[in-house]
């Protein structure tokens, strides 16, 4: 009998690697299937809710009625499933080690199909990404994979889902790297490619290999036409800014409404969306058939303009009111209509031969996507794969980049980051993620910090001063901001001693996160009043400590003395962000 091979560490490691590859493939397939199932269920529900030829009553009532159900589900059963799902996925990846509750994909599937199926002007791709990523995370946890593997599975699931949702395998990989991971050189390239391919193969075997849009082969007709495409890029950038500002503004307004209205907010949005649908039933659901029509030059100028504007309004309302659904599809819709408008004008005014308006709709789609989602590479590849038309790639790149830069200038925070910031979640920037972590805010912050309650009067705050340059307002888990001693004394001198102390807080306040490199902290300290609050990335209302010049000096001395252990570098920021300061320590 042949003796069994002795077990070596290397062969075991090999087995573990093979196992992970197999898991990656299965995750890709499941993510793809979930995206297909999501799309099919939306279609079936849409047919159920509206029939073949929807009546006016149905158009008005259905989104609102269904949103009551989704509102209740989101409030009482499933948390963290509002909106697109891409910001939540990014937050889970960067702040929570890739851990997503298994309830999230289930809830997103249910609420997402209901919301989009009931006619909300929202996309299915963002939720698909969250569902795919959530499934991947759940599988990783169920298989009890190491934490770093669970984290790695998150973008793998996201790529698989997006690949199937759009039938765009390359764009899905680039999106996972560019948007979810935020690093084009990520080592996960191989895994995302494998998952994306597996997902697309399965999705095509179910739905067939058809591009989402069928467009004629467009090309650059005249070299000077690049100027027209550049103009389209600028217009696309402006539209992106308007869309982002409107979305964030209305969402902020909804967030400021009393807590008890949260459950009804989706229904409020649903009612408004229903009224818009009566005026423009072409906005129902994803509206891809009208995008297809625009790409084929089948939408007239006035119609394209009206549909584009109404789509912005409908999407902003649907999304801002908390309904679960993405902005990918609306972005493409708005972009296509913008392009159709610009293309029609150019074809009427240009003194040289130009391409048909459909070509501009195609480029406009990419330009607005690049401006809103702020993922220019994904945009180029996605348009290329969606239409399988390579000829228009140069104008597309020109318009995309212009739109991207214009949007970045006037809306510095990308939309997904801005949406998270509204939820007090601050994602680390690319610089922070790559920075040397041997010295961070965490290492030099002090956790014994004095607070004054937000409802305290200015006189009380002054009475408890002990030589600190600033006072922290609020509580450790409900941090409001800082006020300086000078501010307090000036207010008291002005006879405002009985005013609440939080009336003096200036927004936005300068703060740091625990993973910020020391260089960043010092730079911010130079622009502060001498104290930098350190807040959690997962919830910016949770104060972890403060950094002062003295604190930095103490931290440095402590390390030199060997009294602090720094070998492992700073901690990864987590949603359970370490030790929290105690109650007010006056």
């Amino acid at each position, binding site marked *: 009998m042949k003796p069994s091979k002795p*077990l*070596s*560490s290397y062969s*075991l490691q090999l*087995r*573990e690697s093979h*196992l992970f590859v*197999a*898991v990656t493939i*299965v995750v890709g*397939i*499941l993510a793809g*299937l979930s995206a*297909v*199932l999501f799309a*099919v*269920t939306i*279609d*079936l529900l849409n*047919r159920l809710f509206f029939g*073949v030829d929807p009546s006016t009553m149905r158009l008005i009532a259905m989104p609102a009625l269904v949103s009551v159900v989704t509102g209740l589900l989101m409030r009482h059963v499933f948390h963290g499933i509002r909106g697109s799902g891409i910001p939540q996925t990014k937050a889970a990846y960067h702040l929570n080690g890739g851990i997503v509750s298994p309830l999230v994909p289930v809830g997103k599937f249910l609420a997402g199909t209901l919301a989009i199926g009931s006619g909300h002007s929202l996309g299915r791709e963002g939720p698909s990404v969250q569902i795919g990523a959530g499934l991947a995370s759940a*599988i990783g946890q*169920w*298989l*009890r*994979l190491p934490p770093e593997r669970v984290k790695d599975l998150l973008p793998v699931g996201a790529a698989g889902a997006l690949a199937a949702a759009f039938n765009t395998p390359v764009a899905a990989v680039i999106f996972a790297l560019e948007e979810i991971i935020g690093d084009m050189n990520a080592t996960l390239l191989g895994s995302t490619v494998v998952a994306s391919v597996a997902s697309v193969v*399965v999705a095509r*075997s*179910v*739905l067939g290999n058809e591009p989402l849009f*069928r467009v*004629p082969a467009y090309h650059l007709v005249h070299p000077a036409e690049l100027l027209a495409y550049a103009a389209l890029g600028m217009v696309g950038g402006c539209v992106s800014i308007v869309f982002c500002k409107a979305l964030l503004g209305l969402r902020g307004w909804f967030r400021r409404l009393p807590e008890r209205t949260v459950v009804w907010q989706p229904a409020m949005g649903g009612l408004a969306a229903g009224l818009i649908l009566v005026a423009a039933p072409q906005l129902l659901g994803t509206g891809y*058939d009208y995008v297809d029509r625009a790409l*084929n*030059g*089948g939408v007239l100028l006035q119609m394209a303009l009206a549909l584009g504007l109404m789509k912005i309004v409908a999407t902003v309302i649907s999304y801002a009111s908390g309904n679960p659904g993405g902005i990918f599809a609306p972005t493409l819709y708005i972009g296509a209509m913008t392009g159709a408008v610009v293309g029609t004008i150019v074809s009427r005014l240009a003194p040289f031969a130009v391409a048909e308006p459909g070509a501009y709709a195609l480029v406009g789609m990419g330009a607005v996507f690049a401006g809103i989602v702020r993922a220019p590479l994904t945009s180029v590849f996605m348009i290329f794969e969606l239409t399988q038309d390579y000829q228009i790639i140069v104008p597309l790149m020109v318009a995309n980049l212009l739109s991207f830069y214009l949007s970045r200038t006037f809306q510095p925070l990308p939309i997904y980051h801005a949406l998270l910031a509204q939820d007090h979640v601050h994602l680390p920037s690319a610089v922070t993620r790559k920075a040397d972590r041997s010295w961070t805010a*965490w*290492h030099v*912050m002090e*956790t014994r910090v004095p607070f004054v309650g937000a409802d305290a009067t200015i006189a009380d705050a002054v009475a408890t001063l002990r030589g600190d340059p600033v006072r922290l307002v609020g509580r450790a888990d409900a941090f409001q901001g800082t006020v300086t001693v000078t501010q307090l004394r000036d207010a008291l001198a002005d006879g405002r001693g009985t005013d609440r102390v939080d009336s003096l807080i200036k927004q936005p306040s300068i703060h740091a996160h625990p993973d910020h490199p020391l260089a960043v902290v010092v730079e911010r300290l130079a622009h502060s009043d001498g104290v930098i609050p350190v807040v959690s990335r997962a919830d910016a209302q949770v104060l972890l*400590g403060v950094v002062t010049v003295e604190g930095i000096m103490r931290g440095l001395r*402590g390390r030199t003395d060997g*009294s*602090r*252990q*720094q070998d*492992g570098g*700073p*901690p990864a920021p*987590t949603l359970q962000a*370490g*030790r929290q300061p105690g109650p007010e320590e006056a």
Partner: protein
Amino acid sequence: MNDPGKTSIPPPLPLLTRLRFVQHQTTLLIVLIAITIAAFFLTRSLAAANRALHRSDAARWHAIGKQRLAERDATGAVAALRRAATRHRDSRDIQLSLAEAFSAAGDSGNARDVLLKIRQRFPDDPEVNLRLATLEAGSGHTDEAIRNYQTALLGLWGSEQLAQRRQLRSEYIEFLLDRALPQRALSESLLLAGEIPDDLPSHLRVGDLLLRAGDPARALQQFESALDVAPSDPEALARAGEAAFEAGSFRLAHKYLSAAPDRPRSRTLRPVVELIAALDPLMPGLATRERHRRVATATDRLAVEVERCRVTACATAGSRCTSIEGLAKETATTRAKLARRGRRGESVDAGLSIVVALAERASAACGANPPIIRAVALIAARHGVGR
């Protein structure tokens, strides 16, 4: 001092424990694969159900669209058919109906786009190319129409579609004839002649097209083939007579036209053919005397025609009367001259030339082409006399 919150690195597990762990994970993975397979079939069946639903909706809108098209509500038809096309965008029939609706609504641009899109998917589909050809023909784009007709003819035709293909080629030839392109029409007619079955209507149709395309000899062959199938068919006889007439086979023409006396065309051509048979002086096998007699008879007939013309013209006095009277006198003189020449045994050709010149002048003066003048002209043309 802060607690950095670092995750402490656990001590490495013993190899055997790790192996058991991997084996456990492998078992779970197998379970996951089974779930994935089940999910695949569930998704596929749901997708199929959804597709079926879409198609049934599409069929419903298609029917509505066609009904509106039949009711001449082109705008309503376009709206309904667009909905149908959205629900089943691969359906060729729906797209064809949509193109038809666009055409009916006067939107030939969109109709063309729709048809071109279908052709991208079905480049050899004859019906699509035919629709495109008809559309281009209606828009006055002759070159595009010809290209599309040819693409349609070269497309993939099933064996049961040969009759349709012949019909299409026939329509194409008509189009070419309407656009005054007889050479192309003749080529296509010859191709059509090789495709038709051996039956009366087909031979008649092809013969007719060949005749119109300017090849009466081949047209005559087709009509004779038709007569082989139905020897006493009056239409075939009349057309064969006509083709023989056009081909210059007057004896045959006389034979066929005589057999179909009640056809309008026969009634027109038969007197001419009979005159040619009776008056052609250069017909082979005639004695010289008979040839001269024929020249003289032709002159007599011409004189009678000129006299009739003179009477009509002089009923209302005018300059035309004077010129015709001159011609009548000249005709009488010529007749006497020709009689003398005949008695002297001079050339028949010269006599015929004089008659032909007289006939031309009579035609110009009278402003009409009675059978005798046509007969003389055709005899001259047949023998290369006169011009």
